[in-house]
């Protein structure tokens, strides 16, 4: 299961591509596929975060992959240079 979430109250969406499926929009406990079928394959996640919160310039995203042997979580942080700007986070997951 894959979850992509955005912090600091900002608005974000993602595009997820696995060898068999893809999704655009919010990603919450989205099934990426069966473990055996994914071995050796790659999933790509590209997220856009828009700075809709005028109280902070910080943008962040976390990516959590669960359902395997261990739950993996990765957090990315950035800061927009100007109000209303967007940032793009790009993640590649290799299944071993």
């Amino acid at each position, binding site marked *: 299961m894959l979850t992509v*979430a*955005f*912090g*600091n*109250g*900002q*608005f*974000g*969406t*993602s*595009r997820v591509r696995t060898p068999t499926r893809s999704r*655009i*929009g919010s990603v919450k406990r989205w099934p990426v596929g069966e473990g055996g079928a994914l071995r050796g394959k790659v999933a790509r996640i*590209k997220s*856009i975060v*828009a*700075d*809709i*919160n*005028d*109280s*902070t*310039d*910080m943008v*962040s995203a*976390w990516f959590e992959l669960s359902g395997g042997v261990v739950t993996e979580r990765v*957090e990315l*942080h950035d800061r927009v240079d100007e*109000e*209303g*700007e*967007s940032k793009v986070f790009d993640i590649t997951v290799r299944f071993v």
Partner: protein
Amino acid sequence: MAVRPSLFGVLLCLSSPAAGQIGSVEAPEVTVTVDDLRTPAWPAFTLLGVTPTDIAQPSTPRALAVALLSVVQERRTGLLPSDFALEVAPYWLFDHPDLGFDEYTQPGVLQSMAQSMTVSVAAGRAPTSFDESVSVEATDLAVGVRTTIVSGRTGSSFDRVTSRMRVAHTRGHVLVALQEALDPPDVALPPEMRQALEALQQTDVDLSPNQYAALLREIERALADGLTSDSSAVRLRNVLDRLDGENTATIRRLSLEMQRIHMRRVGLVLEVAGGAVVRASDGLQTTVIRSGAWMTSGVSGERATLIGLVRLLRDRPQNLAVDRTLIDVGLKGTVSAGSLNIGTEGLVRTERSSVRRSRPTWRLVATFDYRVSRDVSLSASFGKDYRDAGIRQRNVVVGILGVNFGFGDPAPTWC
């Protein structure tokens, strides 16, 4: 939102009596309304009676430390700094990776208090005419806190913009996917050119790593486009790049609009604020000379609003025996029907001091506002204003009829 570069109105005032105010917080000859008494954005500045033009607003712990350090370094005499204004939102000094969009826009009580809390601090030289016995080195330091306990919810306009933002994001992802499909194969460049690009990738430059990588990708793509014999791919890429650029600008406009309309809340809202002014003189002697507390609550719908408020101000000049307290309780209701806005507001003021206790005075006024056109509106007020016990006025009537004209081009509308 349309911005009027200039605006003037024609007013016919039948009567406009004065109302007693407190200390330097408000001008003594101005009639206050419910809107004047609402919870201030910066309680410290309001209590100190200043409107600073240069407010330090640190957004990181480091910036806050630098701002405070600079105050200490600039201080030359006295216990406290003079001419200083600072506003800080403690919650937003730190990163909150687990605060999602939904929780931020529709917060619970604790989250609302945390994310809306601001602390304002201001300092200025004490007015020597206010209290002759005060040392010329005396400084007033005001500290205020403001927070929203109940935030209501976002209005339908915010939901519409959010929906448009979702569409714009989806369009952006689709365009990127199509751009990736047009990426030229790696073999398009000769090996020596590819080696040169790889070497350049390892070069130290002044740009950020992301900026430099994007720059190299752009050049690499242009070179690959130049090699391809299929010119239709180049044309497609140009179209996609143009659409992507337009969409990025749309997302930026929508982000700014969401920032702007986020605080237009509907439903129940409860805001509170408080603060105090400390006068420091003669080295180490400090006295609280003024304090205040505000509570504003309202229920807003798409067409009607009801606001209730309580304000308490206590004024006690240093070394003076007089101690004054003002208590204001107000209620205001407005209803909109097309171009017509009708409202009623009532205020009750109680003043107490160590030397006299006045009878409560009150104000009850009905207001009408009718928008004739985009640039012209008619407004009228009628009712009873405060009665000044000192001059024994009885039935003080307030009546104002006004015509407002707006000039200038409206600001560009988003999307």
